[in-house]
């Protein structure tokens, strides 16, 4: 009986599933893609070293070319490349940070061309972009973050975020992978969105283990953090853009992002303006806690963090509670963040890459098969639908 128990415990450990299919994957030569195609010319030895030694933060030089509808629209722009990301750097296809030598003039939308730009944003000058492997969603849908961000854009929320579109990336004319071209969520990105210089930006990021002061006036960041620790609400009201904060907290808790608020959070200010939060990296949304109350998502008992603290300092005030739940109520009632609006976004993204994802499967086995990609897409939509129902019931 003991042996049987041991055998079963081994089964528990190896409990898994594996899919195979008779799907004939298309080859790169068989696809006439409508996606933008990027070719970066690099010293391949340097590129391989950078890809291999991801913790060394190696930067290499390259030349950036971009084709739209087969037409070369960006030619030989000098760029610096660097591997970006945390856990997702372990995947075979890594996120590439691309920094232009000079700000790229995107007024003709040759570099990035989103279907909609929020009225308070500007994409005319871009210093840096990210060719994103979709983070922890890499082996799953390749579009979760992109689709949820698009939902926020379509809803005209008072947010700062990253714009993007899928692209095919080549390195020295060899197919490298399907990635998402995104604007940055760092100081370069925020400076670009508001048409200011990077030197005007003060920015800090909240990660699981620490608060990192990235750019600008560090004394101001320290004072802001100290005010959170001392629960100095009057000071915080002076320093924080509360309307942005409410939209940010509503959206993140609505999508049940479990890789947040202890992580993937950034706040920034332009000159002496108020601090605003940046929406980015939503791969942890709609995964585990879709049945939890929004406040439970924000509370995040696993990892104490200043964003949770900041929220509950404001939440003690009845006027803030009313504003927070009022915003939830009005967004839900309007239907702009509903499943009916989310599904067309996902369907459009599927239509964009349902041929190209085959190249990704062929080269990176991520996802491993077409049926597994469809399973993950189905889960994304199903979980969104459930989440909407859960939150609607709670808010009512």
């Amino acid at each position, binding site marked *: 009986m003991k042996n049987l128990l041991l055998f079963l415990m081994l089964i528990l450990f190896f409990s*898994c*599933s594996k*899919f195979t299919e008779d799907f004939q994957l298309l080859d790169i030569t068989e696809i006439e893609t409508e996606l933008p195609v990027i070719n970066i010319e690099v010293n391949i030895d340097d590129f391989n070293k950078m890809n291999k030694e991801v913790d060394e933060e190696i930067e290499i030089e390259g030349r950036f070319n971009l084709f739209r509808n087969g037409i070369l629209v960006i030619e030989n722009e000098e760029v610096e490349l660097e591997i970006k990301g945390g856990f997702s750097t372990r995947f075979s296809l890594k996120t590439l940070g691309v920094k232009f030598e000079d700000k790229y003039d995107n007024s003709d939308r040759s570099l990035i061309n989103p279907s909609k730009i929020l009225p308070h944003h500007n994409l005319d000058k871009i210093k840096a972009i990210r060719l994103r492997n979709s983070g922890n969603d890499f082996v799953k849908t390749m579009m979760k973050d992109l689709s949820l961000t698009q939902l926020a854009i379509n809803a005209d929320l008072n947010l700062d975020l990253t714009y993007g579109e899928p692209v095919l990336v080549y390195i020295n004319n060899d197919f490298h992978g399907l990635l998402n071209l995104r604007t940055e969520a760092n100081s370069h990105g925020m400076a670009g969105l508001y048409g200011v210089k990077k030197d005007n930006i003060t920015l800090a990021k909240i990660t699981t283990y620490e608060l990192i002061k990235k750019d600008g006036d560090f004394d101001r960041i320290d004072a802001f953090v100290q005010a959170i620790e001392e629960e100095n609400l009057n000071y915080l009201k002076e320093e924080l853009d509360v309307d942005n904060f409410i939209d940010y907290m509503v959206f993140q808790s609505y999508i049940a992002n479990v890789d947040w608020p202890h992580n993937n959070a950034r706040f920034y200010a332009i000159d002496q303006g108020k601090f605003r939060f940046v929406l980015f990296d939503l791969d942890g949304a709609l995964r*585990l806690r879709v*049945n939890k109350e929004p406040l439970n998502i924000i509370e995040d008992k696993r990892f104490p963090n200043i964003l949770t603290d900041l929220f509950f300092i404001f939440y003690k005030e009845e006027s803030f509670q009313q504003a927070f739940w009022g915003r939830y109520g009005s967004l839900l009632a309007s239907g702009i963040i509903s499943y009916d609006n989310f599904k067309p976004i996902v369907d459009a993204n599927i239509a964009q890459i349902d041929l190209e994802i085959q190249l990704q499967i062929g080269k990176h086995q991520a996802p491993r098969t077409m049926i597994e990609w469809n399973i993950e897409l*189905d889960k994304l939509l199903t979980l969104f639908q459930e989440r909407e129902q859960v939150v609607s019931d709670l808010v009512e």
Partner: protein
Amino acid sequence: MKTIYLLLFLFFVTSGVEAQPRRFIFLNSGYSFNNSLQINNEKIKNSRGYIITFGGALKVFSIKKNYLSLGMAGKTIFSSGSRKGNKFNASTIRFVFPLRMNFPLTEKWAISTGFNFQNNLDFLDPDFRLGYRYLWRVDYSAGMKYLLTNQWSLTANAGINLRNMPDVFFLNEPKFAVLIGIEKQFYKRRKTKK
């Protein structure tokens, strides 16, 4: 749904003790199927699977001739189907806790009813967390047993999933199952006086 589980359980629990097996090992195999399934807006055709389960169980308590057993088993499911004309196969290993009430009817025949609790996600899945809503699958199972010899029985069972879950979770293991198998029973050894 929880109330239904409880009522079903209480319904089958009546109350004495006779010579009963203390431990079991079992092996069964069978066919499983879905009646309708849709993944990402497309119907899945011919969704079915073949199941092999091997495990053991212990008698937890008994009431008259009837007894409750709790077990652990490993299950392999070889499922298949087709989406948009593209055929796929999946091989899946799952960990099962069978909880069942057994009702001996005669010396040879017994019926049983109960639930199988099993993990619904791969343990290496990044989404695997104890808090995951669809971590567990619960199947209702009913069956009968025919005693072949003093220790060996033939078994037949039918199962149906009870949880309301998204269709994607039934690709690896379909909702309905019919199984046949064998079971070996171990009785408590008695000291005999010479």
